[in-house]
């Protein structure tokens, strides 16, 4: 299942860069929340419910500026998705952020070592998202 919507646009003349973020989470509640957080910061968000669908979308539309994914998902974890993205010559430059409701240092380190941009603990706060996005925009 995929859904996509634009956040508000800046007024003409303002070159406010809008990120296209791909949010991956098997929980519909968490997808709704992360999408809302990102759209409130005026970014374009596409949500998918699995790593498999994320890769399908990335194959079709490489204009994604950031991937934010849940860690625990059935069939393909966020870590496995991260690895596939980093192993791909076309996708490896896309920053990948991992989210998890569990604070497990080994897990966090493993993800960062594999090339994750950041690791966010759920529930994700507006400040986490704005911090992340302002880093992406530099």
């Amino acid at each position: 299942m995929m859904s996509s919507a634009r956040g508000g646009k800046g007024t003409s003349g303002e070159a406010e860069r809008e990120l296209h973020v791909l949010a991956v989470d098997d929980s519909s509640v968490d997808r709704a929340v992360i999408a809302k957080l990102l759209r409130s910061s005026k970014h374009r968000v596409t949500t998918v419910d699995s790593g498999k669908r994320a890769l399908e979308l990335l194959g079709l539309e490489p204009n994604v500026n950031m991937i934010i994914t849940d860690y625990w998902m059935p069939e393909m974890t966020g870590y496995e998705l991260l690895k596939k993205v980093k192993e791909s010559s076309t996708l490896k430059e896309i920053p990948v952020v991992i989210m998890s409701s569990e604070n497990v240092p080994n897990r966090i380190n493993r993800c960062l070592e594999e090339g994750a941009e950041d690791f966010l603990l759920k529930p994700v706060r507006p400040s986490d998202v704005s911090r992340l996005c302002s880093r992406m925009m530099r």
Partner: protein
Amino acid sequence: MEYSNLRHRAADMRKSLFDQGYLDEQFYQLEELQDEVSPNFVEEVVTLFFRDSARLISNIEQTLIGASRVKNACTLCREYCDEKNLEGCLKLFHKLKREHAVLRQKLGSYFQLLRQVGPMEIATRPSM
């Protein structure tokens, strides 16, 4: 007048959900996300929660191995979810977690004992 009474009732209801521990800090964060662009955001997310949790509980029910207390708690919990009864659902959910933990401990002890006892005829129905 009517409207102002309703608003008071709604505010009281909301406060009581927090006071009685049915809702916590995370719910505030959801409320803060609601705005003119998504004026029903909180209700939408709550609806998703009940839909998903009913399905997850139903999944647990299907994988049950004869765990009847857990199963009963699941059934009740799912009914509350279907009715969108937040209070009932959360109470039952806590009960479900407790039953799950207790069963885990009890079965853990049982299997530990079985390992010491070795193979034996166990497939007999307890007299009820």
